[in-house]
């Protein structure tokens, strides 16, 4: 028998008992539907994280902090003048400050292209003209950062002009008519220096940022020129050594570096007494949690599929039983056991294909509809989030996996059919 005939006959056979095939297909459908939805959830959320990662930091940058010397001891710690309140850790936690000598040590490390200490700025307010003052939470832009913008441009790291990107929420508050109208507006940023003297720094709004995972609150991002200006203003009155202390630094490395090269760089930093983290490291924990949740959901879907696979076994065993004589006849007519096996196992694969293709197809329709409805309502604050996204690769994988499960389920009945003795089968009543 030709392979094409084996396939054709198997498909015909699966439609011979329509009710039974339909019920089995429904069982697989449920599993495949669930698996597609849960997978789509993982794809959607992780896609969103990936696009948002660029807004949190550049891909070729390590955030370097100094490892505290007494990090492991418990109880009250010895006073250390180099400890700074951590901007990244929990409230009250401190980090060992980086000093200019640390910066030059890091710069000397192999693989480091440039080091930029992160200037921690704490402006008080933002104001347009003589309008209302609004509290401002701003941070300096990391070189290479890609903010999610609603209007305008990314802050320039090379320009000497003082630039600021503010969150969308500031536009209305500051009395500006629209996002695009806000671009180019001159703003005043209030700072208090070490001597408690207030002063202002002028800056231009170059961009309006969308809310995203990287910047959910009402924040502003300053370009390097403005960051430096704000830092200098707030540091007035501090002596040199007290001024040049940084909680962290951004280390730029070759953007073409391989993961293992990045790891080596991190190792060198660790050896020198520093800790380096890429954006991927920082975001990694987040992704791990999501992956774990998706894995658990997938496990449920796989359990449903396993239950369905017993349905396939049952369906095909009944089919083999019903067709005992037919199998005997075909074998008497010279059909080999291998082809008989192929006939039944392909029938199983076909049933698996039907269930998974219909399941995946309907899951795509439902998932797309649901996530469109959600992103318009519940998740409207997170533009760009498609809760359930589908990648052709994972859909194909799901269909293939279900077909593989169906094949495995079909092997038992198919082997039973293939082993049948033609004489016994023809005598079978």
């Amino acid at each position, binding site marked *: *028998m*030709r392979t094409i*005939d084996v396939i054709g*006959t198997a498909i*015909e056979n699966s439609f*011979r008992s329509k009710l039974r095939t339909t019920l089995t297909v429904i069982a697989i459908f449920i599993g495949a539907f669930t698996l597609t939805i849960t997978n789509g959830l993982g794809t959607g959320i992780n896609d969103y994280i990936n696009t948002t990662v660029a807004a949190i930091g550049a891909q070729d940058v390590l955030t370097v902090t100094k490892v505290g010397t007494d990090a492991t001891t418990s109880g009250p710690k010895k006073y250390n003048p180099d400890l700074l309140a951590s901007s990244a850790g929990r409230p009250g936690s401190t980090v060992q400050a980086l000093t200019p000598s640390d910066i030059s040590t890091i710069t000397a490390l192999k693989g480091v292209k440039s080091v930029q200490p992160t200037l921690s700025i704490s402006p008080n307010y933002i104001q347009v003209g003589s309008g209302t003052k609004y509290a401002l939470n701003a941070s300096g832009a990391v070189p290479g950062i890609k903010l999610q913008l609603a209007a305008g441009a990314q802050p320039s790291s090379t320009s000497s002009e003082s630039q600021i990107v503010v969150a969308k929420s500031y536009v209305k508050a500051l009395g500006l008519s629209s996002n695009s109208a806000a671009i180019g507006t001159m703003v005043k940023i209030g700072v208090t220096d070490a001597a408690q003297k207030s002063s202002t720094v002028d800056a231009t709004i170059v961009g309006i940022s969308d809310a995203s995972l990287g910047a959910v609150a009402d924040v502003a991002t300053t370009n390097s020129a403005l960051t430096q200006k704000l830092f200098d203003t707030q540091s007035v009155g501090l002596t040199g050594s007290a001024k040049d202390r940084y909680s962290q630094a951004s280390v730029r490395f070759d953007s073409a570096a391989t993961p293992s090269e990045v790891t080596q760089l991190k190792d060198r930093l660790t050896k020198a007494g520093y800790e380096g983290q890429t954006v991927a490291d920082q975001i990694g924990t987040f992704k791990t949690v999501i992956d774990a949740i998706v894995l658990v959901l997938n496990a449920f879907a796989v359990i449903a599929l396993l239950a369905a696979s017993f349905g396939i076994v049952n369906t095909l065993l009944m089919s083999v039983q019903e067709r005992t*004589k*037919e199998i*005997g*006849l*075909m074998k*008497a*007519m*010279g*059909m*080999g056991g291998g*082809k008989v096996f192929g006939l039944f196992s392909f029938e199983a694969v076909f049933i698996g294909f039907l269930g998974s293709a219909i399941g995946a197809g309907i899951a795509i329709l439902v998932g797309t509809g649901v996530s469109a409805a959600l992103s318009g309502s519940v998740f409207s604050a997170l533009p760009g989030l498609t809760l359930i996204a589908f990648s052709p690769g994972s859909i194909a994988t799901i269909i293939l996996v279900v077909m593989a499960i169906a094949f495995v389920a079909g092997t038992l009945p198919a082997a039973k059919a293939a082993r049948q003795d*033609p*004489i016994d089968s*023809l005598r079978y009543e």
Partner: protein
Amino acid sequence: MPVPILAARDVTKSYGRGPGRFDALKGVSLEIYEGESVAIVGKSGSGKSTLMHLLALLDRPSGGSIELSGSDALLLTGRTLNVTRNRTFGFVFQQFFLTGGASVLENVILPLKIAGVGVRDRKRRGRAALAQLELEDKATNKASDLSGGQKQRAVIARALVNDPRIIFADEPTGNLDSATGAVVEDILFGLNRDKGITLIVVTHDADLAARCDRRIYIRDGLIVDSESAVAA
């Protein structure tokens, strides 16, 4: 002396072992020549069906040998055996073994499908075989819609479709009334006479056996008598 198309040499077949051992055939030798019609006659349990299964290479004897056109058929295994069976034999069983839900044509072309003949070719040959049995108009009907006689004619068409050299008929008229049975018999002997297909009929029906060139009587696993009286 021509070479027999099919020969059994001191064939034995036993089932089981030890005290439960049952000898279905206790040493049977026979020769069947091309174009003959032979009846293997015996009561149920005589071993006639076992002998047919051995001759049709559906089973292997416990002892002795089977020769197909003079060569040892027991040397055939696996694929070669399947191909040989497919090309050489046609089967007509008492129970029709038609797939009810499939069309008559689909049923008839099953041996060609197994042989790997292309779609167009097998449809053409299937229709030709059906035409030979005057069933051409039923080609697209479901097999379950046919009458008993039509079913057996469809079965003969199926046995015929791959131009076999030997047709095995196991109680071919057992499920038919005598008038329809007579028609089916006429068709089978017509094929034997006109196309020279060797016909091996297994039956306990004396009238059917009488129409064959030769009768081989089997009882308790042994040939008790064989006669080549010309049919009346």
